[in-house]
C-alpha cells in the first residue's frame, strides 16, 4: 500500500517573543487522512505552532510546505482559503446571525439578480448539517443552539470551505459525551475523505480514541513524534511533563521543609461533590488546619476550576463547601472571603494585582472594609498592617508607595499573598503560586507556604511543577477530566506514583471512588 500523500511538511519552525523562545526548531508532517494529536503542557508551544500554521503569527525561521508548495500566510483568512481551517475552543461564529447565514457567510448562493438566494441557502444548510447530526431550523439565530451544535456548525463550515487540514483546538472542552461521539464520527469521516486533522486535547482517552499519530511539544521543542499506539499512556504523560520514568531525586530542588503537620483532625475546609457543567464532575477535597493539600493533574483536568468553585468564583450546579463547620452559600466570592477562604489566582495580571496602584493600596484593598469605621479608614491601622506584611513576606519595594506594576513577578505574587493574609484567612487556595517568577523568589514563596501551614492555615496548592507539588504537599489529590481519580498520601507522594495516577493506570489501591469518568 502506497503511503498517503504528504499534505503538510513543517521544517525547523521557530518563533521568539520578547524574552521567550516560544517555538524552537519544530518539525511536523501531516499526511492525507491522518489524525494527528498535538499535545504539551501550558507554554509548550502548541498554540504558537497553530498560530504560525494559520497565519496569525509569522515565523522567525523555518518553512511551511503545504501540498508541495512553500507557503507564508499573512492572515488566518489566507490560510483558510488555501485549505487550512481551524476550529477554536470558543465557537468563532456570529451568534445573532441565523445558522444558515453563519454557514454560508462569504459564499452565499445568489440568484440571477445578484441577490441572496435564501431558499437554496436554507435547503443546502439543512442538508449539510444533517451530516453532522444537527437537525435544527436553520433560520433561527445561531445562539439558540447548544454549544455542541454550534461547534458542529463551525466544523461544517470549516470542512465545506474545501479544507485539506482541519485544526481542532480543544474541540471537546464544552461538549457533552454524546456530542463528543458525534464529533469523533465526523473526524473519522474526514479521515476517510483524506483530510488531515490536527487534534489538540488534554484528554488522554480522546487522544487514544481518535488519533493515529502524535507530536509532543515541551518548552517550545518537539520532544516526541510517532504513532500514538506505540506510546503507552504513562510514557505519554512522562514525555509531556519531561520526567524520566522511575527517576527519583534523592534531594529536593525546592525549598519546602515539610515542617508542618495537620494540627487538628477535623477539616477546616470540606468541599463535597462540586459539579460545574462540562468542567467538574463531583470533586471532593478536604483540608485540615496546618495541612498542605496538593491538587495534581494535567492542564484542563479541573484544578483551577476546583479552586474557583471553592472560592465561589465559579458557580456550581451542585455540591457544597463547608468552612470550619459552617456551610458556605455557593457562587459568592464575598461570602467565601468572609468565611476565611482566599484564592490566589492563576493569572495574577488579569485577576489579581492592580498595577497602577501602590504596594500599600494593593495590600490593603481587600481588608479596607474591615479597617474602616463609618466609612472612614484609619490610615494608621492600614500602615501598620501593610508594614507588617512587607516585613514578614520580605517584599522588596522601594517604599509602600511604589507602584506594584514596577515590581518583579515574585514580589507581585507576595503582594497578592499579603493582600489575602491580611484578611486573616483560614484556608488559602494557591493556584500556580510560583509560575513566572524567578528562582530566588520561587524559593521564598515556597518557604512562605510552609510557614503559613505551620501557623495552622489550611493550604490548597495547585502547581504544574511536579517537584513543587510533591515536596510541598502532605497529600496530593489527583484530578483527571474534572473528577478525582486518586489521592496520594505519605510515602505514596512520589513523582512516579503521581504520573501513573495522572496517566490513569495507577494501582487500584490508589484510586478513590471517582474514577468513573473513563468512557
Amino acid at each position, binding site marked *: 500500500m502506497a503511503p498517503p500523500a504528504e499534505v503538510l511538511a513543517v521544517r525547523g519552525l521557530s518563533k521568539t517573543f520578547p524574552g521567550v523562545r516560544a517555538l524552537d526548531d519544530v518539525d511536523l508532517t501531516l499526511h492525507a487522512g491522518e489524525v494527528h494529536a498535538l499535545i504539551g503542557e501550558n507554554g509548550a508551544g502548541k498554540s504558537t505552532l497553530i498560530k504560525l500554521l494559520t497565519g496569525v503569527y509569522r515565523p522567525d525561521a523555518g518553512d511551511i510546505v503545504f501540498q508541495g508548495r512553500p507557503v507564508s500566510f499573512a492572515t488566518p483568512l489566507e490560510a483558510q482559503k488555501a485549505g487550512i481551517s481551524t476550529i477554536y475552543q470558543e465557537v468563532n461564529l456570529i451568534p445573532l446571525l441565523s445558522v444558515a447565514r453563519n454557514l454560508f457567510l462569504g459564499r452565499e448562493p445568489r440568484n440571477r439578480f445578484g441577490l441572496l438566494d435564501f431558499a437554496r441557502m436554507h435547503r443546502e444548510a439543512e442538508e449539510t448539517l444533517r451530516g453532522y447530526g444537527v437537525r435544527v431550523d436553520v433560520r433561527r439565530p445561531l445562539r*439558540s443552539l447548544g454549544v455542541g451544535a454550534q461547534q458542529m456548525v463551525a466544523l461544517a463550515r470549516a470542512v465545506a470551505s474545501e479544507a485539506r487540514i482541519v485544526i481542532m483546538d480543544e474541540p471537546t472542552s464544552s461538549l457533552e459525551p454524546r456530542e463528543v461521539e458525534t464529533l469523533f464520527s465526523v473526524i473519522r469521516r474526514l479521515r476517510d475523505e483524506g483530510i488531515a486533522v490536527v487534534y489538540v486535547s488534554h484528554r488522554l482517552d480522546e487522544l487514544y480514541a481518535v488519533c493515529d499519530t502524535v507530536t509532543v511539544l515541551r518548552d517550545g521543542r518537539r520532544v516526541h513524534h510517532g504513532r500514538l499506539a506505540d506510546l503507552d499512556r504513562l510514557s505519554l504523560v512522562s514525555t509531556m511533563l519531561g520526567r524520566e520514568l522511575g527517576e527519583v531525586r534523592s534531594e529536593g530542588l525546592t525549598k519546602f521543609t515539610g515542617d508542618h503537620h495537620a494540627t487538628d483532625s477535623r477539616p477546616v475546609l470540606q468541599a463535597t461533590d462540586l459539579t460545574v457543567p462540562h468542567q467538574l464532575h463531583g470533586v471532593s477535597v478536604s483540608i485540615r488546619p496546618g495541612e498542605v493539600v496538593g491538587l495534581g493533574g494535567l492542564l484542563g483536568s479541573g484544578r483551577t476550576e476546583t479552586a474557583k468553585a471553592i472560592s465561589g468564583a465559579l458557580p456550581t450546579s451542585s455540591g457544597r463547601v463547608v468552612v470550619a463547620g459552617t456551610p458556605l452559600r455557593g457562587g459568592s466570592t464575598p461570602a467565601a472571603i468572609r468565611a476565611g477562604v482566599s484564592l490566589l489566582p492563576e493569572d495574577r495580571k488579569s485577576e489579581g494585582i492592580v498595577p497602577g496602584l501602590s504596594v500599600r493600596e494593593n495590600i490593603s484593598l481587600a481588608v479596607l472594609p474591615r479597617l474602616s469605621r463609618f466609612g472612614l479608614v484609619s490610615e494608621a491601622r492600614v500602615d501598620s498592617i501593610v508594614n507588617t506584611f512587607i516585613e514578614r513576606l520580605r517584599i522588596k519595594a522601594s517604599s509602600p508607595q511604589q507602584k506594584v506594576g514596577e515590581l518583579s513577578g515574585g514580589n507581585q505574587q507576595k503582594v497578592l499573598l499579603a493582600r489575602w493574609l491580611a484578611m486573616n484567612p483560614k484556608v488559602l487556595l494557591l493556584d500556580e503560586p510560583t509560575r513566572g517568577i524567578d528562582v530566588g523568589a520561587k524559593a521564598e514563596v515556597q518557604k512562605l507556604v510552609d510557614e503559613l501551614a505551620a501557623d495552622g492555615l489550611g493550604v490548597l496548592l495547585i502547581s504544574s511543577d511536579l517537584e513543587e507539588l510533591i515536596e510541598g504537599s502532605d497529600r496530593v489529590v489527583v484530578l483527571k477530566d474534572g473528577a478525582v481519580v486518586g489521592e496520594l498520601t505519605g510515602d505514596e507522594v512520589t513523582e512516579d506514583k503521581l504520573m501513573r495516577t495522572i496517566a490513569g493506570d495507577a494501582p487500584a489501591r490508589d484510586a478513590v471512588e471517582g474514577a468513573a469518568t473513563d468512557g
Partner: protein
Amino acid sequence: MTVTKTQAPVNADDGTQAAGAEPVGPARSERLSALVQQHGALAVLVIVSLVATFSFDSFATGDNVSNMATSSAFLAIVALGMTFVIITGGIDLSVGSLFALGGVLAAWGSRHGTLVALLLPLVVCGAVGVVNGLLVARSRLAPFIVTLAAMLGARGLMLAITDEGANTYLIGKGSFLAELGQGTTLGLGNPVWITLALFVAGAVVLRRTRFGQHVYAVGGNEDAAALMGAPVARTKILVYTLSGVLAGLAGALNAAWLASGVTILGNGMELEAISAVVIGGTLLTGGLGYVSGSLVGVLLLKVIQNVINQIGSLDSSYQQVVSGAFLAVVVVAQTWLGRRRQLL
C-alpha cells in the same frame, strides 16, 4: 440546562416562565420576543396615531399628515444611514453637521446648476464619511471620537462657507432643485417619495446582498467575521460613507424644500437619528437591526412631536421630555427582550 457562551446569568425566572406558560415552547416564546423587538415600535405608532386621531380633529387631516410625512423624510434619510452604521456596532455623530453642511452646499451650488447643487453635498459629505470610515476601520479609533471630531469639523466648514452664518444662500424658485424639494406627486411631497424609494433600496441591500450580510456579521462578532472572510474594514468604510452621503442628501433636499441653506439646522439631529434607530429595534451594540424599524422610529418621534404641538396648553419643549422618556423605556425594554432571548 444549556450553558451559553455568553454566560448570561441564568436565573430562576427562566424556569418559572416556562412552567407558568406551558404551551409556549422555547421557540415560540423566542419568536414572540423577536416579534416585539422588531415590531413593538410599529404597534406603539399605530396606537398613538389612533388616540391622536380621536383626540384632535386636526391630526388626521390631509395637510397635517402630509406635513408630518415631509418633515419626517429628512430625518428618515439620515436615520437610514445611521441604521447601517449602528448594525456594524458603530455610531455616527457627524450626521447633524453634515446635514447642515449639505444644505448650505446645495444652496450655494444651486447658482451653478442643479447637477452641482446635488452632487456637491453628496461628494463632500461622502468624503467626510470616507475619512470617518478609514479612521474607524484602519486606525481602530472609537467611532464615537472619530465622528465627534468630524461633527465639529463639518460644522466649522459650514460656518466658514457662510461667513459665520452671516450669508444665507437661496435656491431660486422654479429650478429643478426647488421642484424636487417643494413639489408634490400624488398628494405627497417629493422628498417623501425619495425617502420611501431609498428605504426600499436600503432594505434590499441590507437583507439580500453580501454587503448586507457583512454589515450584520461585523456588528455581531467582528473577530469571527474577519476569520470567516468578511471584509471588515471595507464594510466599515462603506457604512460610514453611506451615512455621510445620505446625511448630505437629506441636507440638500431639506434646503431645496426650504429654498435656502439654513445654517442653524441639524443641531442634535444625530441624536434624534440614533433615537429613531434604537426605537426601531436596532441593537445599539450591533449585529441586529431593521431598516423598516428606523422608519417607524422616525415617524413615532414626529407623531409625538406633532401631538404635543396639538395640545396647545403644553409647551413644545415637553416634546423632548416625552421623546427622551420614550427612548429610555424602549432601551430598557430592548435590554430585557435581549436578555430573554439570550436565555432561551
